[in-house]
């Protein structure tokens, strides 16, 4: 049953949807936002652009989480960390490109001037180069995940144990980044960015560029994830999720499979973080708080884990609800989020996508049973 070749990833309807999404992101959204005049019914507001742009970054994270949790059965509570690390890596470049325009007119970022530092610490070297920063975005989360994952998976830490030590790792990093002398701006983090590649950062055009890039990254991640789960690798991963011992007895070493998907997942989070930071204009250690990482899991659970469209749907539903709630009833947002956590785990084990599939199956059944009668 195993099909190969890129064309086999989706059926014709699937490819149609992908192409439609691409057209929406690359052509329709920019047109509606930049060309259609303000006040027109079809105008896409700047607020919506940055909101959807942000949520698309979250959706990438949710997809990455789905690969490791939905398909491989490993619940990570550290994906917020990888996301933030990617953001920080790219943030370093953004801070360097502020140049002399900071409050203190110094070549150093304001927070370093404030701490009376005279030069950049060694780990800031070369971050003024855009390409090197992009490399860091991939390498920092990737290497951390690889090393951590290697030791964790090698000693066969799994299930809740793994979740808890990833949470401890995230917590430790948050504490570290909250310190001023770590060299990442303490609890204020990085902000006041001015430009990317010499283009000013807060213009409608740049916002659109970042939006399109996030959208492309999301579609790219979706294709990559689809390719992985429909390959032999994906089958082994699912097998590990369902019965790891049997996979071992069949002669596979789960270590490298798990390590690959774990590292890839972390790298995807890093990329999402790097796209996210210029859109919101700030990155601080709050992004690393354990609560954020757990929330990622709930996006996936709401949408439906073990499906690829589910995490994207979940990320949009939960974050859309958040941006509506925090404006309409700021006090009740946590009640609502908490209720989602409970309701989804109790009543919707397969998420919204699973619910839709279930309803469809029921309707089909009814039709079938109705016909003979």
């Amino acid at each position: 049953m195993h099909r190969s070749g890129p064309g086999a990833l989706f059926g014709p309807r699937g490819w149609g949807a992908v192409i439609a999404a691409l057209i929406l992101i690359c052509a329709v959204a920019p047109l509606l936002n930049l060309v259609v005049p303000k006040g027109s019914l079809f105008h896409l507001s700047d607020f919506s652009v940055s909101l959807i742009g942000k949520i698309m970054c979250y959706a990438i994270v949710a997809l990455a989480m789905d690969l490791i949790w939905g398909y491989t059965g490993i619940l990570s509570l550290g994906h917020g960390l990888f996301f933030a690390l990617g953001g920080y890596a790219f943030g370093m470049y953004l801070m360097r490109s502020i140049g002399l325009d900071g409050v203190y007119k110094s070549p150093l970022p304001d927070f370093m001037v404030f701490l009376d530092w005279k030069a950049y610490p060694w780990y800031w070297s070369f971050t003024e180069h855009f390409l090197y920063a992009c490399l860091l975005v991939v390498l920092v989360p990737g290497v951390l995940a690889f090393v951590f994952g290697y030791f964790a998976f090698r000693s066969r830490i799994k299930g809740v144990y793994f979740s808890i030590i990833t949470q401890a790792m995230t917590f430790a990093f948050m504490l570290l980044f909250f310190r001023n002398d770590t060299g990442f701006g303490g609890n204020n983090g990085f902000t006041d960015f001015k430009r990317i590649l010499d283009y000013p950062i807060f213009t409608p055009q740049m916002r659109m560029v970042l939006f399109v890039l996030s959208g492309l990254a999301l579609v790219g991640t979706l294709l990559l994830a689809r390719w992985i789960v429909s390959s032999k690798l994906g089958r082994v991963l699912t097998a590990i999720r369902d019965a790891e011992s049997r996979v071992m007895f069949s002669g596979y070493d789960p270590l490298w499979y798990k390590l690959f998907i774990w590292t890839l997942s972390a790298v995807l989070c890093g990329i999402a973080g790097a796209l996210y930071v210029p859109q919101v204009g700030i990155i601080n250690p709050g992004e690393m708080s354990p609560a954020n990482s757990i929330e990622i899991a709930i996006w996936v659970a709401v949408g439906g884990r073990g499906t690829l469209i589910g995490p994207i749907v979940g990320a949009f539903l939960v974050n859309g609800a958040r941006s509506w709630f925090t404006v309409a009833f700021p006090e009740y947002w946590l009640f609502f989020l908490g209720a989602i956590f409970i309701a989804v785990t109790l009543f919707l084990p397969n998420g919204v996508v699973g619910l839709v599939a279930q309803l469809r199956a029921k309707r089909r059944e009814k039709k079938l049973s109705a016909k003979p009668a």
Partner: protein
Amino acid sequence: MNLVRLIRCVLAVCALAVGLPAAALTPEQIDKLAAPGSDARAEALNSIAAAGDESAIPFLSALAEGNVQTSVSLKKVLIVIDGKGIDAVTGKPVAKLPEDLDEVVANNVFRRELAAAIATLRLTSGDRAVRLAAAKTLQDETESDRLPLVERAIAKETDADIKALLERVRANLQLNSKDKTIRLAAITSLGSSVNPGTKTILLEMLAKKGGEFVEPDADIRFAAQKSLTEVEGRLTKGERIGQVFSGVSLGSILLLAALGLAITYGLMGVINMAHGELIMIGAYTTHVVQNLVRANAPDLFNWYLLAAVPASFMVAAAVGMALERGVIRFLYGRPLETLLATWGISLILIQAVRTIFGAQNVQVENPVWMSGGVELLSNVVLPWSRIVIIGFSAAVLLLVWLALTRTRLGLFVRGVTQNRAMASCMGVHTGRIDTWCFGLGSGIAGLAGCALSQIGNVGPDLGQSYIVDSFMVVVLGGVGQLAGTVYAAMGLGIVNKFLEGISGAVVAKIAVLVFIIIFIQKRPQGMFALKGRFADA
């Protein structure tokens, strides 16, 4: 410094109660003292201190408190307390306060001098506590003008502790004497000090400036070196004791926080991310009980904890049992889903507390008998609140152990943990046992909250800061083992405090987390693994 403040308060109160006696100070002295920033001011102070007349104290303490005001129109110096003025020279009340009052400002240096002068004068007080406090204030004093008074105080002193303290004060004052034998004797007697200030003084004597010793006399340097070694040894010992104590204290807090988790997670295998919020509920219950007692029976306020302890247990246990019945029961055997659902519960609980009590921290006051501490050495004070909590966590541990090993419920809990199906076959109502067991674990979390409210802030986020720590303790100790939890909590507490001494709090915390992560690599089942075969545990 607190002692100094205490003395000042005591003095101010005395002054008010008695009504100021006619001051022993001459108008010239008072004028000099009321003129800020001049050398004459310090000189006047020293001469007053050297005269040793106790009746100067009220004015000096009023000066230190910032209660002395000058008036140009009256050409008088007044002591103004609570809107009532007293003439500093005559001691008579002033009928009406003039408009042009100007406060006499005492800067920090002068304040210190004032405190020392007051202490010198208090050395001959009849009250032992006042003398002791005064002698302590003088420990870092080097002004040799004080010497005659200190000598006089030593001659009169009958209390051995105060005498020893005063002798060190004298030694301090004699260090700059011209007589070499006096200096040597002084340095040698400083060797018995436990005051960190002494170390600084001795180090100064041994310092080099531009290649030359500050102190030219080799004998004196030798004596100073010897005394320094003694003092340092004693100080390090004090620090060690202090660190071990705060380590044990942190350990006992971790133990309390983790003990409930050791039952719900360790025995039942339920990942309860809302455990921290159950702790928070315990702390808020204490807050409510405290307010109720204060409102209805203020005389019993010192004993409100007697009601708060059972109340926090009951409330947290009730919430826990409701959670078990309502949510967790449906998720047994699905640990990751349990994790997410209980996290959701924790969010709801946090927001609920925020809605009811507000987002700010609430006040929980210590009963009087828990404030203060035991002074072991002069640089080691063990606060009562911490000592009480150590005792409390030991008691809770004992009760839990008894509950699990000596009661019918404990027997059933162990039975269900070891073999649920078999226990069920023997007629144990496993579902009900789960509820009770979860209630027990939650109740202990409530007790932890009650204890934590006595030493830290009580706010909606209280639980969040303990949840990671408590999981670390349980995971490190080994699942299903009370003993492991105890060792892990104490070990983590002490290691954490020692690292804190070396590298600061945050780095210590990170180091401990990294250590745990590495440790779990080596022993995934914790320090005390259950023996047995688990293929896919």
